[in-house]
């Protein structure tokens, strides 16, 4: 029987009621009395030198409060990067300045040049058109490999070249790797592209800056996954403001998928301008503006080689990747192609020798940073595509080849720096084979063929690394922040509980799932527990929500704080029951003395904590505890996915006929929410595989800058998904045994789709061994007719 409350129950989401009735409170719903509006004049060319910038006509336009240019920010810090990568020769990465408004040069379409603050948005926009801007257009460098060439146009004049870093992980001895490949019975090589994507949460970014002269205090309302991180970066590195005078609030956040982790120039601008104008300043991104100012995702070009022995055991893996970082370093962009990508290249397999090489490039494009999965989808796509290609070349079953090479003993130290604590890859594959009815595939293929269609089955596995930690290790790897989290459990006198958490939901249902844990631990109704998040003035501290970390890291802090609360409450209960603390048990909201019928209710103990008339002298009044939690390791969710496609050989049209996910997320708090996370991830993965592509022309013009041009998955592009989460090996090092589920779908699904398309094409007698994403009808048709 499914549980109806607490850990393991599919409790309905309490936040839904406000979202369903139009009562949500998103940042754009916030209007501060007297606010002015900012419009950013952005570069419409990819690379140029500003030779003239006259704002006098704009300043004279109706309603204009002030016009800002780069000059206003000459004494202000630039946007910081939160991760210093060291290259394979021991040198730090090249780290160019990233100004709030352009300083002399523009480096991508969308680079902000000036900002007009006016009484209304329309007035600001009208005035921006009156800015007299002269730009000397320079040649742009867009292609990553071209950017790496000697003599390439420099994105940053003060850097020696366009290479941010040349990084390596795994086996450092090239001769040893060469020897493995020379001795292999078979080597499979694959060149592939991981297409550039735009995260496109449905809520565009918004920032409202407010300054109170009387108290010298700032408030920034912003669409952020991590308000404390924004406050820290903005205060310490950009504007030089005292942290205790700055409050950052992220109210309801309408999706993020990574793109709302980063500290953006518009946030710092609105905070700065609020004081400079002595008025609140609001910025709301249009969707077109989002396409050229939100950090993009993916954009890797790779060559991967897999060496196998005569028995089809994987004996070596080598990858060479070019990663596009865009024109500037975004907050965590340097970490994505390196520590979030290279470390995952072992996948689910016991390949003894792995070498990962990554060259990260500056180009005249929008900065690229973490997008759902962040490095792990790029690793998984390479690995699972090359394994599939190897199976086809060797004429062996792709599932059998995978099973033969699975890691089966845990803990397992990979050759690329990780220690997997748990997993059961064969068990999860067994679940997939049953859930996807793979035994029935031949009949389904025959039925498709009877109507003139080709049917393909694509299988792949994935390994995930969530809740990146511990802080001392990530610090050694270059992180400029800790990756712990915090929670305060505040019990009120009447027994209800407010939990202030550093994680911040942007659709994941924390307001429902987190109380399930606390209520379960105490044995009270979930409705007695409320989550407070998204406001630096209300929560102790928090690193926020990304990397599928919320429950594994912040949830663990919440468990630790709740344990402290229970320990203290037991002392009070022991006093009230005139018993020894060691004999007190807590069950179903009742403290009882073991072996007796003496008990006292949760509410009586909490009331006593705040009305301490009859109270143990050695205990402080009140009932509130805080815990910070720094995990001992990552968590390692894993899974196996199956996709079935139907392909029309006449048109190249591919339709997804079935998609099945078998995941191992360890223990699960709310199965309904977990399933929803997987659905959404698969939807985005199918989008990457079949539809989405952020395209530039050779001059750096962004060709896909609206929903008219960028193909977002729509309801009729996707099927119902099958999900099975019954394969559960709990995480060994966090108190809930949870692993994280937010990114799995986006990591595991693109290779499944592409493998299925290739299977369909090959079943039609066409020997095609690779096709790039997005797998558009024109690409399929071309491949079928080449």
């Amino acid at each position, binding site marked *: 029987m499914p549980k109806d409350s607490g850990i393991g129950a*599919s409790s*309905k*989401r309490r*936040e*839904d*009621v*406000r*979202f*369903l*009735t*139009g*009562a*949500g409170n*998103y940042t*754009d*719903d916030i*209007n501060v009395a007297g606010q002015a509006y900012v419009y950013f004049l952005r570069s419409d060319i990819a690379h140029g030198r500003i030779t003239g910038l006259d704002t006098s006509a704009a300043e004279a336009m109706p309603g204009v409060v002030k016009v800002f240019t780069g000059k206003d920010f000459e004494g202000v810090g630039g946007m910081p990067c939160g991760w210093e990568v060291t290259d394979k020769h021991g040198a730090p990465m090249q780290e160019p300045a990233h100004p709030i408004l352009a300083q002399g040069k523009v480096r991508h379409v969308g680079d902000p040049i000036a900002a007009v603050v006016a009484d209304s948005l*329309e007035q600001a926009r009208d005035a921006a058109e009156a800015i007299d801007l002269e730009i000397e257009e320079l040649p742009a460098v867009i292609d990553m490999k071209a950017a790496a060439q000697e003599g390439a146009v420099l994105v940053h004049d003060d850097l020696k070249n366009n290479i941010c870093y040349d990084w390596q992980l795994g086996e450092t001895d090239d001769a040893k790797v060469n020897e493995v490949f020379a001795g292999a019975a078979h080597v499979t090589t694959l060149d592939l592209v991981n297409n550039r994507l735009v995260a*496109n*949460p*449905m*809520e*565009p970014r918004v920032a409202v800056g407010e300054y109170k002269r009387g108290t010298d205090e700032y408030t920034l309302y912003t669409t952020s996954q991590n308000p404390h991180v924004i406050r820290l970066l903005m205060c310490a590195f950009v504007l030089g403001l005292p942290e205790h005078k700055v409050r950052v609030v992220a109210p*309801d*956040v*309408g*999706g993020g*998928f990574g793109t709302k982790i980063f500290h953006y120039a518009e946030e710092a601008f609105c905070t700065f301008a609020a004081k400079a104008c002595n008025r609140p300043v609001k910025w709301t991104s*249009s*969707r*077109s503006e989002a396409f050229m100012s939100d950090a993009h995702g993916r954009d890797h070009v790779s060559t991967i080689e897999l060496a196998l022995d005569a028995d089809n055991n994987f004996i070596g893996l080598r990858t060479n990747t070019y990663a596009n970082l865009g024109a500037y370093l975004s907050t965590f962009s340097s970490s994505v192609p390196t520590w979030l990508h290279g470390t995952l290249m072992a996948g689910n397999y016991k390949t003894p020798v792995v070498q990962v090489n990554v060259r990260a490039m500056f180009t005249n494009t929008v900065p690229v940073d973490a997008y759902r999965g962040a490095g792990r989808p790029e690793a998984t796509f390479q690995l699972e595509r090359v394994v599939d290609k190897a199976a086809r070349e060797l004429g062996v079953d792709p599932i059998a080849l995978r099973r033969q090479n699975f890691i089966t003993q845990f803990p397992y130290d990979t050759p690329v720096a990780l220690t997997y604590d748990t997993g059961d890859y064969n068990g999860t594959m067994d679940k997939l084979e049953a859930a996807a009815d793979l035994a029935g595939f031949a009949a389904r293929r025959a039925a498709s063929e009877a109507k003139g269609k080709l049917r393909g089955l694509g299988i792949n596995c994935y390994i995930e690394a969530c809740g990146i930690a511990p802080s001392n290790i990530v610090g050694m790897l270059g992180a400029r922040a800790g990756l712990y989290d915090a929670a305060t459990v505040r019990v009120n006198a009447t027994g209800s509980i407010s939990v202030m958490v550093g994680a911040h939901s*942007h*659709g*994941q*249902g924390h307001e429902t799932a987190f109380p399930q844990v606390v209520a379960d631990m105490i044995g009270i109704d979930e409705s007695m527990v409320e989550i407070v998040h998204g406001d630096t003035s209300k929560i102790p501290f928090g690193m926020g929500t990304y990397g599928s970390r919320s429950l594994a890291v912040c949830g663990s802090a919440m468990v630790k704080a709740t344990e402290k609360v229970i320990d203290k409450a037991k002392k009070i209960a022991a006093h009230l029951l005139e018993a020894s603390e060691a004999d007190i048990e807590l069950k179903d909201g009742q403290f009882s003395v073991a072996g007796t019928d003496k008990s006292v209710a949760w509410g009586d103990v909490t009331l006593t904590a705040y009305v301490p008339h009859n109270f143990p002298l050695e205990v402080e009044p009140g009932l509130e505890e805080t815990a910070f939690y720094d995990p001992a390791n990552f968590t390692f969710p894993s899974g196996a996915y199956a996709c079935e496609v139907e392909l029309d050989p006449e048109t190249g049209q591919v339709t997804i006929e079935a998609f099945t996910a078998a995941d191992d997320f360890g223990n699960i708090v709310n*199965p*309904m*929410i977990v*399933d*929803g996370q997987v*659905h*959404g991830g*698969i*939807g*985005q993965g*199918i989008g990457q595989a079949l539809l989405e592509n952020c395209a530039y022309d050779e001059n750096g013009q962004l060709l896909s800058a*609206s*929903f*008219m041009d960028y193909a*977002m*998955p*729509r*309801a*009729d592009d*996707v099927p*119902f*998904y*099958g*999900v099975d989460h019954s394969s559960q090996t709990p995480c060994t090092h966090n108190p809930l045994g949870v692993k994280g589920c937010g990114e799995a*779908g986006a990591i595991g699904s693109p290779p499944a789709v592409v493998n299925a398309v290739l299977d369909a094409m090959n079943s039609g007698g066409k020997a095609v061994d690779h096709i790039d994403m997005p797998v558009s009808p024109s690409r399929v048709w071309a491949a079928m007719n080449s």
Partner: protein
Amino acid sequence: MKVSMTVNGRLVEGDVEGRTLLSGFLRDQLSLTGTHVGCDTAQCGACVVHVDGVAVKSCNMLALEADGAEVGTIEGQAHADGSLSVIQQAFQDHHGLQCGFCTPGMVMSAAALLKDNPRPTEAEVRKYLEGNLCRCTGYHNIVKAIMAASGQDVSHIAAE
């Protein structure tokens, strides 16, 4: 310019520019912020409202064009006692929303669909939602919720 219309059964008046969009009028002048704006090319559908009973993208209509019209927004969808409508309840029951930003438009579109087609097939629901983008759910639970709201048995559809 003066404009007046009935919004969720209440007569309202306002002063707008010729270029003021209906979405802007609802959000900025009437503080009905449940109608969301997610794009600028009439693609995403977060701003869908009903104008004289027809589902309309309110970012693609001038406020003046709605002069004299009956307008329904997400704020008017719940029952008079505050309880959720059948469609809203189905979205909660079947986890048809995550971040909630597309949700008002989804609910308004679903209401318009079910008015015209009380028992749509899965394919009909998916086709009808072409003008409503959701980035969180992969559409699975939205389609399921709408079919459930139409009184169809959805227990055979996978997942919670």
